[in-house]
């Protein structure tokens, strides 16, 4: 390490690994109620984690939530990009995850055909 810039570059790289401990950035929220788990939420979660690792998106937060009453549409996956509405995708299968991450998380384009709800955030 020879300059302040070297240190700052290293810091940027290391910061992403600590992102889990900050409450900002893009969030992926998976419905892990009994209904969600029965519909395969765990497999969806694994697919999400796998895809994030492949794409090295280590600043994306993955959270879980309970049943929101739309059990029919499980597995439910919400994507929240900072400053954008919370989009809920329904009947998500592990094989859909790649597309949702590529389109919505990375490029900000909502995958309209899978959306079941939209919540405006303050």
């Amino acid at each position, binding site marked *: 390490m020879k300059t302040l810039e070297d*240190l700052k570059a290293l*810091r940027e790289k290391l910061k992403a690994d600590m992102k889990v*401990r900050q409450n900002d950035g893009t969030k992926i929220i998976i419905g*892990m109620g009994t209904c969600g788990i029965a519909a395969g939420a765990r497999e969806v979660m694994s697919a*999400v*984690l*796998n895809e994030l*690792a492949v794409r090295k998106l280590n600043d994306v937060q993955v959270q879980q939530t*309970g049943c929101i009453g739309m059990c029919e549409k499980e597995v439910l996956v919400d994507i929240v990009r900072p400053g954008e509405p919370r989009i809920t995708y329904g009947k998500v299968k592990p094989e859909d995850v790649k597309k949702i991450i590529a389109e919505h998380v990375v490029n900000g384009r909502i995958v309209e055909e899978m959306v079941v709800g939209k919540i405006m955030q303050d």
Partner: protein
Amino acid sequence: MQHIRAHVLICGGTGCKSAGSKEVQLAFSRAIEAKGLSDEVMVVETGCHGFCEHGPLVIVYPEGTFYCQVKAEDVEEIVESHLFKGRIVERLLYHEPLTHESIPNYSEINFYKKQHRLVLENCGAINPEQIEEYIAVGGYEALAKAVTTMSPEDVIEEIKKSGLRGRGGGGFPTGMKWQFAKASVSDKKYVICNADEGDPGAFMDRSVLEGDPHKILEGMAVCGYAIGADEGYIYVRAEYPLAIKRLRIAIEQAEAMGLLGENIFGSGFSFKLHIKEGAGAFVCGEETALMASIEGKRGMPRPRPPFPAVAGLWGKPTNINNVETFGNVAAIITNGADWYAGFGTEKSKGTKVFALTGKINNTGLAEVPMGITMREIIYDIGGGINGGKKFKAVQIGGPSGGCLPESMLDLSIDYDSLTAAGAMMGSGGLVVMDEDTCMVDVAKFFLNFTQSESCGKCTPCREGTKRMLEVLTRITEGQGREGDIELLEELARNIKETALCGLGQTAPNPVLSTLKYFRHEYEAHIKEKRCPAGACEKLANYEITDACKGCGLCARQCPVNAISGEVKKKHVIDVTKCIKCGACMAACPFKAITKG
């Protein structure tokens, strides 16, 4: 490979470790493995969060959920419920004692709300054994900024402007100290970090070293650059094995990355650090004694001048600061002196870490801006007195400090107002006492401490504190005489004026401050042979009240057969035989024995 979606931060400070956090950590690793979550959940051991009363503490991110008093048997539930399904385990959250409301996030807890964490910023938030985590939160940027963009004069100017004062007790302006060391011309200079934390009840330095060791290394390196030193020592007591271990790891990691060692950031500045383990003598916290100890000599103070800035370690110019002082340096350099001077009062800038102990609900570490009142620290952060008892006094500043009564609770806490009140900032130990504490006994406790820690070099301290302790002992044993208070005052004055070092000069403070605010307690002991708090055993009078059923249990327990009476009739204690052991009181099933 998997994306790490959750971090489980487990406090690995000495407090939480002794409460079983190591077992909790092992249980987490096992349960996470069993649940197949090893690739997506990371377990991190951190330093102290300060909320030691409620340890072991566990924080789960990304939610930031704060779990208290976690036991190994709770872990499976946290893993199954929280980590697997995302459901918070309500029963392990912190419950506000007054409202019984459960609080999931620690920034919402009263204990943390009033705090302002600069020095403790990373304690409990990062893994102290990984330099990467320190760098990720901005670590070593102050050092880089100092050595590549600032001159040593700029650094000293910045520290002076910030208003930082020594956190070890005296409160000497840090920038001035650095300037004196810089002004000394020599082929060799040293930087020393005084981590010989010895005040009873103080543990803030230990927590900083355990929780964020790199911050101290960085502060020392900046100081080395400023004064022109290329070598430094951390003098830390051997009773702090965890702090020593983490410091060693930190130095090794910093050297491996070129952040310590030769030619740091290509600036030509080199800095090497050593650890010196102290044997735990209180006097070695005194700077000249500390340096003697590093040199391998017996730890005894010497007269000043010459001050260390002129002739210190091995006769070379040396700058000594306390752990917490160095803990402030990086933030000042990174954010600027004006930012730092925005905290605190006119003459006491920044924050101070206090160790809360004694009869207080939330034992732990709290960092607050200077100028906050004692009441806010004790009641808002500390949660008040435990067991619903009444507050009596707070001892601040350790054996060199003093006791402040209830009337001083609204005093603003800064160096000068505390000194004016007869106490001192000291290292920041706060021992809270309730109505059951005898103030003469407290003074005796602290004098007993300084007496046994006196190095014996100068007569006033060696003999004077011994005489004072004798007088205090006889007062608490009911042998106090007319004139004892005056004798204590005279001895105190002489010791203060003539002792060689700070230890001796401040040793009478606990006696003087209790005499100032609680003189009536001394008088009650001497004139009425009575301890108003009921704490002095030799002065206690045990009496059997009318609630006595005459069961005879007490009489059988009494080791000196001082209790007599007929069965089913009220018993009596023969005060001439009674040795005040309290065995009768403990044995009575009807609470018919009182102590007064």
